[in-house]
């Protein structure tokens, strides 16, 4: 007789959740907690008379603000330092420039709509509602993005002598082992809470399902790890489980839950034809407001309005505005002349800049598909960290793989110090540990060291708890009519959704000020 979770138990659990929510609401009503800011796109009022807005930076946050404000009677101009709009939303195709300080490159991929590389953001989770709303509104066609592929490889010098194993083997053989170990070692009498002896059988059943154990609670292999052979003219034959002690030697355990995290779990999406279709969508609406190659040198805020000085064609140009929405990366803003209060500007240098690094390689054959890999990511405990296989263009001749994407600042620096050719050489050496013939398929590649890319010189701001506590509120709060924006001023740096949230936060505040001043049409 199996004990099941009773209805009463369930109601108790639900009650506990309801209780905390009720407590939360009560605390809010008492003013103990700040009201949760509206995460939806703000409904702006239309101005009776235009107000001049300067947006500094044509990345996702700047374009979002320009799009929303320009529709409501604001006179918007966007100044962008680079030769292109989009900021870190950057897709390269045949002939595109990669504007890296010291190592400028040109993308030599074949001219083909499937041969592109997303140098910055490359995937959109299903709960990034604001971005998805804009995609819908701006006619950005989306396709599923494969982020987690159990047929892809896991490779680490620390296990199996560096021989790669299929992800499904790592996941399921280690789970089977852990489940068997626990099923054997948990004694009924040891359960003293939160589970009790009465839960013992149910727990063992869970473990059996968790690891796919046999009736004697032994792990003898599972089809979850893949069959030894997929020849359906013959009976299924399980693979022999991998050695658990080898599996646990790998630092892959720190990465294995990646595809289960809030932002990385299915369902993920990508714009058809490249992430910069999002930029193109915004530019169709506000491209006429964007001025490129205009690098800001000076910002003077005052009660009457702000003055921004920028360089264009080697000349200094001045512009005045009622509001300034500033998306310049903080670490660059620190080098611009300004009259901000010290306690505000000190924050610009407080948050370290990210040093993420990516490589894209055009492969002359989609060899990975012959290995049964269609989209997804192979993981390796090397500098390159990951190899992504394109989910678009399946079974076509060529494809662009992501050949390195490191989350590690030091590995990012290591790559950045090399010339583009040497970066690719290193990525091929390391990739060959996963696919032995890797190098022979490489035709051409692009390398993107974000902390050396012009007009960026950094990737996602490296916030941590202490920095958030000390600086975030200060940097998010406007100084006069000057607002700092970008994913850097969000609790979701490194994501376009964070950039959009910062823009919505700023324009909602502007709207509130205008409404209070009675300048909004009824």
């Amino acid at each position: 007789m199996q004990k099941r979770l009773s209805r009463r138990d369930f109601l108790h659990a639900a009650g506990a959740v309801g209780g905390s929510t009720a407590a939360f609401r009560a605390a809010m009503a008492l003013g103990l907690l700040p009201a949760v800011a509206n995460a939806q796109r703000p409904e702006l009022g239309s101005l009776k008379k235009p107000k001049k807005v300067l947006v500094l930076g044509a990345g996702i946050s700047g374009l979002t603000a320009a799009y929303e404000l320009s529709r409501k009677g604001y006179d918007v101009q966007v100044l962008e330092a680079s030769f292109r709009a989009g900021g870190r939303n950057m897709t390269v195709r045949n002939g595109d420039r990669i504007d890296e300080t010291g190592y400028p490159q040109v993308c030599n991929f074949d001219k083909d709509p499937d041969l592109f590389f997303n140098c910055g953001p490359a995937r959109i989770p299903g709960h990034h509602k604001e971005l998805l709303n804009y995609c819908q509104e701006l006619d950005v066609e989306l396709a599923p993005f494969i982020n987690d592929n159990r047929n892809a490889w896991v490779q680490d010098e620390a296990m199996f002598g560096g021989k790669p194993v299929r992800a499904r083997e790592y996941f399921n053989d280690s789970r089977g082992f852990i489940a068997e170990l626990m099923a054997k070692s948990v004694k009924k009498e040891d359960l003293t809470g939160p589970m009790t002896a009465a839960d013992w059988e149910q727990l063992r059943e869970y473990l059996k399902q968790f690891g796919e154990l046999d009736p004697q609670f032994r792990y003898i292999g599972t089809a979850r790890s893949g069959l030894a052979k997929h020849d359906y003219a013959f009976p299924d034959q399980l693979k022999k489980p991998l050695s658990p002690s080898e599996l646990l030697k790998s630092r892959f355990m720190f990465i294995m839950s990646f595809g289960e995290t809030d932002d990385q779990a299915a369902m993920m999406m990508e714009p058809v034809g490249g992430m910069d279709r999002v930029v193109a969508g915004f530019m169709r609406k506000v491209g006429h407001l964007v001025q490129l190659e205009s690098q800001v040198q000076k910002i003077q805020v005052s009660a009457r309005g702000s003055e921004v000085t920028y360089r264009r064609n080697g000349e200094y140009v001045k512009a005045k505005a009622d509001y300034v929405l500033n998306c310049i990366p903080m670490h660059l803003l620190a080098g611009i002349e300004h009259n901000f209060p010290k306690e505000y500007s000190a924050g610009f240098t407080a948050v370290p800049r990210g040093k993420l690094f990516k490589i894209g390689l055009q492969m002359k054959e989609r060899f990975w598909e012959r290995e049964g890999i269609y989209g997804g990511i192979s993981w390796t405990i090397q500098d390159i960290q990951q190899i992504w296989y394109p989910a678009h263009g399946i079974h076509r001749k060529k494809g662009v793989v992501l050949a390195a994407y490191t989350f590690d600042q030091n590995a990012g620096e290591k790559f950045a110090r090399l010339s583009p050719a040497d970066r690719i050489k290193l990525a091929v050496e390391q990739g060959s540990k996963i696919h032995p013939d890797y190098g022979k398929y490489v035709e051409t590649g692009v390398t993107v060291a974000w902390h050396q890319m012009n007009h960026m010189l950094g990737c996602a701001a490296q916030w941590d708890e202490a920095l958030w506590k000390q600086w975030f509120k200060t940097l998010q709060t406007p100084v006069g009519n000057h607002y700092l924006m970008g994913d850097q001023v969000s609790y979701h740096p490194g994501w376009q959704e964070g950039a959009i949230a910062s823009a919505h936060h700023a324009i909602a505040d502007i709207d509130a000020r205008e409404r209070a001043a009675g300048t909004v049409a009824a």
Partner: protein
Amino acid sequence: MKRRSSILAGMALAWVVGSASAGNDFDYCLLCHGANANGNYGIRAPKLSGMEPWYLARQLENFAAGSRGTASEDGSGHEMGPVGLRLKTEGTLDAAVQFIGKLESKRPAPTVSGDVAHGRELYKNCASCHGTKGEGNASLNSPALAARSDWYLVTQLVNFQKGLRGADERDTYGAQMRAIVATLPDEKAITDVVAYINTLK
């Protein structure tokens, strides 16, 4: 429908892609080194404006040749290396130096504090080459030290000390600095002497 929307999208982007005009090329210097190249601590890029043209040129040559900025611990030096090389190979190194020379130099706000009296004592070893007022001496190939990014002076003294700079035999003057920096035995001595340099006008 699918094809139509991607063609439209391609057209919208087409006009965005232009080439950087010639006038903007050296603006890249300002991206890192800040407005008027007065320095940006945010990305550890020192103030360049006000530096002697001969000193700027020599350092760019050193970066281009790899006699500076190649030590593995010298992260910022590594970022500058390919820039020096690019200027050298494109034949725009002198023009870059001229560009910097035209910028409006501003005395940077001090960020380093230390024992100024102790720094004054230590500075006696520096003064023979760099001048009693930190004004520099071109005939001795010694750049001015006053009104520079003080945190950068600290970084470079530490680099000389650790052999991250001046260890390459092609960097003759760097080697001299490497020898003399022995008079600054520790980090405190370095911050003290820089705190004193901050008082020089």
